[in-house]
């Protein structure tokens, strides 16, 4: 496995995905007294090429580490970011890679990754119950953190009308936010 620089990684994505590659950004910062550099890459792809992008990451390193899937409610769309880290195990060489996918709110579906990375199960289940995104092909779609009696259709991370505003617990004497 050879270790590529961030610019080479982005060129590899552009070649592999073609039109579905939308944008990219590199973030660098010098750390502490010796001024070593800390690097993060953000890559923005279309939903159709999402699984191809993940397979391309698996070519960069055989078992990439998927840390978490974070989701943001942007009004009329939901943006998912898959946080990967590659080249771990080598001193000062690791690079964090964030893969962004944008989903319109009237069609919140994304394919699963559990056949490539079995450890993605918990984080996909959490995205399903907290944001309302449907993960197509997930082997186990039970609720993860919310209790069984939690009302359906209420998604805690959303900022629109499906948020949990009605079931908050307000202390006596305080206004509800």
């Amino acid at each position, binding site marked *: 496995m050879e270790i590529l620089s961030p610019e080479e990684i982005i060129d590899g994505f552009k070649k592999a995905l073609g039109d579905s590659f939308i944008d990219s950004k590199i973030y660098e910062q010098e750390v502490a007294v010796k001024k070593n550099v800390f690097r993060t890459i953000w890559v923005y792809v279309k939903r159709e090429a999402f699984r191809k992008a993940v397979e391309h990451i698996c070519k960069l390193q055989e078992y990439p580490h998927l840390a978490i899937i974070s989701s943001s409610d942007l009004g009329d769309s939901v943006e998912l970011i898959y946080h990967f880290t590659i080249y771990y195990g080598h001193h000062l060489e690791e690079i964090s890679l964030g893969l962004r996918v944008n989903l319109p709110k009237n069609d919140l579906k994304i394919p699963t990754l559990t056949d490539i990375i079995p450890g993605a199960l*918990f984080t996909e289940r959490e995205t399903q119950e907290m944001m309302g995104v449907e993960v197509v092909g997930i082997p186990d779609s039970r609720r993860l953190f919310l209790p069984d009696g939690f009302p359906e259709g209420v998604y805690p991370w959303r900022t629109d009308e499906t948020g949990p505003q009605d079931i908050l617990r307000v202390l006596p004497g305080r206004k509800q936010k």
Partner: protein
Amino acid sequence: MTMEKVETTYTIPVGPIHPALKEPVRLDLSVNGEEIVDVDIVVGQVHRGIEWLGMNRNNPIQSIYLAERVCGICCVSHPFAFVEAVEHAAGIIPPERAGYIRVIIAEMERIHSHLLWAGVAAHEIGFDTVFYLAWRVREEIMDLMEYVAGNRNTKAMFQIGGVRRDITEEQLPKIRKSLDYYKSIFNQLKTVFLDDTTIKMRTKNVGILKTEDALKLLTCGPTGRASGVAKDVRQDQPYAAYADLDIKAITPDVITGTVVGDVYDRIIVRLVEVKQSIEIIEQCLDEMPSGDILTEPKIAKLLNTLTKAEGEGVGRHEAPRGEVIHYVRLEPGRETLSTWKIRAPTYVNLMAIPTILKGGQIADVPIAFASIDPCISCTNRAVIVDKRTNKKSILSGKELHELSIEKTRKLKC
């Protein structure tokens, strides 16, 4: 003759039965005689909605104290990663002295957490005297943390842009004295844990996790390192003062020469990491640069900068249990965080439990489960349930713990 499959649901308390760490983790095991066939996990009992509170009610400085209470044992790891993420998002660079103080506090917490775990593991095998010894030894580092930071548990040392309290020249002699105490008893601890025949018999070849499985299931921290995955954020992508120190990820072959991935290897990794932490603290005390500890001491100005900032950032830290990641997004004009995502290490380590427990015996379940060092409140509680057979019978956690002690007694004879 077909073997009768008995479906049994166990309520297994994680941690010592007789004291407090009874987190209701429900493991539903399908058993075939004495052997475990399948495991199911169910999570959710400690879900407090922390990310929602950070996105809707708190400004970023208040969220530091909320992040501290995600878990009471690793209460330096979460603020550390959170503050790094906000600094990357807002473009604030802390001074170098603050980075060194952060590392010293984080390493002190690692020593306390590993000694806590060592006591819990000894209790699960049945050695209560070793449990009391480990927790008595731990009190020394708790006193040191109280002397340096002000409190035993929740220390409130972190601030966006630096740290809130300094380590002065007068405090150095006492810190060095405590570290000398730990260096002097380290060999004794090693003999108690690694050279004892009963511990070897109970932990060798129990709860094995192979390297390939650890890579696929995204295991991190000492659990992953004991299986050969040499992944350590302090070595790979260092931050704060770790970037100046050359830290090596510890795998069990430094002592035994091979990697097996059983419970004994996990004990080795954690004990050697205690020694590594002591050396890191000493190196930091020698090399600490002078200067400020905060980029912006006035809180009103800091809040103003954060409300106008725009960007996103990822903060990572190597907690005693694994890798902690926080993702933060800031929007201009909004006082609360726009997006906040926390991932604690037990979140991913729990997915390795079915692989670790399958094929093992019921009496080994407490020690094998405790060996991944689960911090269930970090994970928002996971309950693992797996049903498969027809008959149902319930064993309480106390009976399970007694099965484990009984096995030790049989081995000793």
